């Protein structure tokens, strides 16, 4: 048996990481910014003494840095444990705090589960949720959104860019529709976990009232994120404790992670435009090679209005989980929307919503390029991918 088949992956093997939408590796500069807060005695930011003030100061500096980048006031940034918690806080916290005005919420049908499962929870609390359809390209129906707003609508949440197919929603257009509505004045939240670092995130230009940002997708540490929430919006906490984060998110702050998030966002924002051009060129090259070298490949989601690093394709007759494991064994990390890779054994809801046939949803594979992806990585991946596809197709009953 080949020694590579060992469950423990050979660490000397060259790895090509093409799953940057799942999470990104940490930037060395981010780690450098964090280290002093991990190594030295850092007090509790709520304490009065020197060590406490040092910690508090680091948090507030980071908060200011983030606020400046997104065009918000400093008191409008709430630190959380990441994208999921920011989304949960936005949906549950805004809905519950505003339910006196109505109990109707509008979200897109391709939201992340952090949003969809929060909505499910609210449904059990008597809230009514409208799910806006998307077209085959993965863009939401603006007409349906417009006609769905009613006097009881208190919250609209539409993700900025999709995690699976990378499609970008017209957030400022959506904001305008919401603001122009004469029937009600719902809060507009957008999950920008995938968008930050790739797309402009100035909250004033976007027209959002709340925005989710995650550190783990922008080359920062895991387990930290933030929620921008306009000081004009009512929100209530979903966890309970001390006075931290204006009572909205109690708990002793993770100082080093907060410093890391601010540093990561700042680096990502500085690199954004040149990096987008580089990634899009590399992504388009990769996709053209896939389409040239492998037959019966279909692209999932439209290629316009798409994150520059995202490829999502279905390779006929090649089940996604099998392909991911075979690629992994050859040193390439990517992901799939196949049912066989999910715990509930249902294929990706995003692929279903954009009308991907079931048998092709099982054959989906996602490659997401990142800051450390080179053309050499892509060239070697194309060769490996073609070999793995051939191997699976040879034993596939679907020809």
């Amino acid at each position: 048996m080949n020694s590579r088949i060992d469950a423990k992956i050979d660490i000397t093997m060259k790895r090509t990481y093409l799953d940057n939408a799942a999470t990104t590796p940490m930037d060395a500069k981010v780690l450098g910014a964090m280290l002093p807060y991990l190594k030295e005695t850092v007090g509790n930011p709520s304490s009065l003494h020197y060590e406490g003030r040092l910690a508090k100061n680091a948090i507030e500096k980071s908060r200011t840095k983030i606020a400046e980048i997104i065009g918000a006031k400093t008191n409008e940034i709430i630190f959380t444990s990441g994208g999921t918690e920011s989304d949960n806080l936005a949906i549950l916290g805004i809905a519950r705090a505003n339910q006196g005005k109505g109990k109707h919420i509008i979200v897109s049908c391709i939201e992340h589960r952090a949003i969809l499962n929060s909505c499910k929870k609210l449904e059990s609390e008597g809230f009514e949720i409208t799910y806006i359809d998307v077209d085959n390209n993965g863009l939401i129906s603006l007409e349906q959104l417009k006609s769905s707003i009613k006097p009881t609508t208190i919250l609209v949440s539409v993700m900025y860019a999709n995690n699976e197919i990378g499609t970008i929603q017209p957030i400022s257009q959506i904001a305008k529709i919401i603001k122009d509505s004469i029937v009600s004045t719902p809060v507009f939240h957008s999950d920008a976990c995938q968008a930050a670092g790739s797309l402009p995130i100035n909250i004033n230009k976007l027209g959002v009232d709340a925005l989710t940002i995650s550190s783990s997708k922008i080359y920062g540490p895991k387990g930290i994120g933030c929620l921008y929430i306009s000081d004009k919006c009512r929100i209530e906490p979903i966890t309970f404790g001390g006075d931290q984060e204006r009572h909205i998110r109690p708990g002793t702050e993770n100082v080093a992670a907060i410093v890391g998030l601010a540093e990561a966002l700042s680096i990502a924002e500085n690199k954004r435009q040149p990096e987008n051009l580089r990634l899009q060129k590399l992504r388009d090259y990769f996709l053209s090679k896939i389409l040239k070298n492998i037959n019966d490949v279909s692209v999932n989601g439209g290629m316009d209005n798409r994150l520059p690093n995202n490829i999502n394709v279905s390779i006929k007759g090649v089940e996604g989980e099998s392909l991911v494991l075979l690629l992994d064994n050859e040193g390439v990390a990517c992901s799939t929307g196949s049912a066989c890779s999910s715990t509930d054994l249902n294929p990706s809801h995003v692929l279903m919503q954009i009308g991907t046939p079931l048998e092709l949803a099982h054959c989906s594979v996602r490659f997401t390029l990142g800051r450390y992806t080179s053309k050499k990585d892509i060239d070697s991946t194309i060769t490996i991918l073609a070999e793995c596809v051939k191997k699976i197709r040879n034993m596939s009953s679907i020809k």
Partner: protein
Amino acid sequence: MNKENNQNHSADGENWIYSEGVRGHFFSPKNVLYDEADYAADGVGTVGSPECGDVMYVWIKVDKKTGRIKECKWRTFGCASAIASASMMSVMATENGGMDLKTAQNLKPQQIVERLGGLPDRKFHCSVLGHKALRNAVLDYLKHAK
């Protein structure tokens, strides 16, 4: 439960990772029939449907004298556990001089899974199709042998 299987369990007790047996058969599958055009099978069995994500073909050759399976070939569409269980089934059907047809018809998914060293819990019911495809191939053989 052996030591290796213990390591495959997460804190909530769920088996989530593929065993060495599954990985071995997935990365180096046995008895795949790449092209059936020139393969004179004595029996052919199909199970599943592509719409459900899993479909499998099994071809068998039977030793007329001994009434045992002498060759068992397959092709399948599915995840690693579907491929590994098909491969393991084909090994079980042909080892030690070949399975007799009655034993082959009564092969249980649990027997295949045990030989693979276990499967992730959520995979157990959906991905083991080999025994059904083998049973259908044997039935197909018996129908034509009459």
